[in-house]
């Protein structure tokens, strides 16, 4: 049985195929660019092509992410918090706490052994603690997104960002630059500020190890280091964890498929 999970995010649309709910097939992403349905179709096309399947061979498709309702050919949709939690436990079965940092929001989730959401909390009101903020910082500091972590590594005295607003935080950064603060320290400050905000959310739901990071932030080694230091625990990270929500969606699709196909079979028997 092949199931698909599509995570239609505000920045990127991510998709994966999963075989029998246990084996990860290829994962792909494309920018959403304001057209979620189209992005979903594109990703699905890529996945099917990569796995050498015919479009009809995907048995069940579950969407998640902010655009989950916009994709017409779905069999099921679940919220991205539910999906990320499942995905995290799929990738790291010991996960009991999942931190999901996407482009516009940060969520702390406590999960059961099976990946069920026990409690969760999202960032309030302002978006200064999320991924888009990092993208802007990268732009401002003229450092490529991919090497933010590397650049920050040298920092000794991180310069914290106090503003809760991502826009005003930029001004703060400019001020630091004008005051001659080295870029590495500003960057590390950005990471630490982000980690501290995440930590407050995490403490609200309660932190039980293992902690797994999912969402786009996994690509950011600097942020991961800052996070581990702030919370005082090791954090599970893997490149696949950017796809956690898509994976979780595919896994939930598989469970649903098993349930619905077994139920009629059982009735026949």
């Amino acid at each position, binding site marked *: 049985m092949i199931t698909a999970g599509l995570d239609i995010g505000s920045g990127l649309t991510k998709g994966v195929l999963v075989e029998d709910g246990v084996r990860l097939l290829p994962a792909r992403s494309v920018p959403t660019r304001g057209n979620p349905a189209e992005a979903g179709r594109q990703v699905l096309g890529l996945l099917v092509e990569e796995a050498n399947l015919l479009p009809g061979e995907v048995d069940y498709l579950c969407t998640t992410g902010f655009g989950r309702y916009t994709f017409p050919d779905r069999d099921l949709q679940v919220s991205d918090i539910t999906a990320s939690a499942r995905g995290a436990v799929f990738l790291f079965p010991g996960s009991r706490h999942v931190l999901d940092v996407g482009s516009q929001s940060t969520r702390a989730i406590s999960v059961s052994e099976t990946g069920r959401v026990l409690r969760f909390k999202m960032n309030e009101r302002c978006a200064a603690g999320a991924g888009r903020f990092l993208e802007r910082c990268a732009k401002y500091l003229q450092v490529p997104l991919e090497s933010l972590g590397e650049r920050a590594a040298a920092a000794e005295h991180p310069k914290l960002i106090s503003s809760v607003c991502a826009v*005003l935080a930029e001004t703060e950064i400019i001020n630091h630059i004008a005051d001659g603060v080295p870029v590495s320290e500003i960057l590390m400050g950005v990471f630490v500020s982000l980690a501290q905000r995440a930590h407050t959310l995490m403490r609200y739901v309660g932190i039980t190890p293992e902690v797994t990071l999912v969402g786009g932030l996994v690509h950011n080694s600097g942020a991961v280091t800052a996070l581990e230091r702030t919370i005082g625990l090791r954090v599970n990270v893997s490149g696949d964890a950017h796809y956690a929500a898509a994976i979780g969606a595919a896994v939930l699709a598989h469970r649903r498929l098993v349930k619905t196909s077994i139920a009629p079979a059982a009735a026949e028997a």
Partner: protein
Amino acid sequence: MSETVPRNTAPSPPRAAGEGSRGFLEEGRKLQRDLVEEYYRNLATAKERGQPVAYMLVGGNLTEIVRSFGYEVVFPEIIGLNCAIKHASLDNIVHAESMGYGLDVCGYVKNDIGLQDLGGSTPFGKVPRPDLLVCSFSGCYIYVKWWEALAESYGAPMTTFDVPYMRSDRPWREDVDYMVSQLWEFVHYLEKATDHSFDMDALRKVLAESRRAEEGWVKWLDAGRLRPSPIEAYFEAIFYMFPINVLRGTARAGDFYDVVNAEVERRVRDGTNPVPEEKFRVLVEGVPPYTHYRTFWDYFRRWGAVSVVATYPKVGGLFDRGFLHDPSRPFESIAEYSLGAYVNQSWEQRRRIIADYVDQYSADAVVIHGIKSCRSFTAGQGDLRDWLIHERNVPTLYVESDHEDPRYFSPAQMRNRLDAFFEALEQRRAAGSLAPGAGR
């Protein structure tokens, strides 16, 4: 400084040496420090000494009665402001947020509850846990919510002293009766809780001490009427209000104001005023931004602005408007005093008080500092500003930040607003459209 460095239109801040240059009375400030240290030492050792601890709120507090039963008294608001001045509030606040207190909950509450949950250690010593929570419901609804939360966390008993809201010049008979009956009930409660019997004569003596301190405090406040003003009625007062709020009823409080007032007299004689060249006489309304309190003060000083009168130091009681403790009518006067806490005044009363102050202290302008997490003080300050400008013709500035949460204070923005305000005042004065002291 080279010629090319731009000057502000304002004079740069005075650069004399020592604490005196910050506008403090030297002896007064030193004595105040000693009193504060002693107070925290007593708190830290209260449990060892077997002394019970009562928590109390500043507004309309019942210090005299509670102390007469042998309690040591903790004022979490005072601890909160001390933490904020020492930059120790943010950790507590963030901790409280992780406990579930939302962004918009009063900073005092979050500082206190976060602090307690983290073990009660402050830069000045450990704060003991309460054996009794006395909630004087005088002017702020959050008082009730806050004490309720503490009562539930500690399982400590809570008593409420309900203080009706003041909507008239003088207290209403029924309100005072209600409060007197509550005071009797409270006293009976304390008798049971401590096994001490209540001694009205002892209370009268304590109240006589309170009154002496109150008179001294009022004398200090009144000095702001002089021109130039020998006192800083907002920035300096924050420190000198400690004895009147916390140590009332002890001889030390009264003595403190004697020392302070003698020093003020010297200032008047020598002309060593807190701001060397008094250019603007300002009334300040609202709770200070304790986390950036020196920065905030500097924004005034660099313009030669001195606060000659302020409403915030009256949160503990409007002694300068007649609510003094009277040993011959102990409970009635306690009731009247509690009714007179500043935030317990209706907006109509508050407007009247401010208008009177502007006249009595010949203020040129009003600066209102709003607190984002305090609705009691703040909700309606915008309307006050409107009223002052349009109906009283008093130039008024409204700025906003927080008393406890440094994340809400933006130095650049704050400075911009104050600079613009004083710039405009200066312009108008130069053009003759603002007479000095034209607070009418």
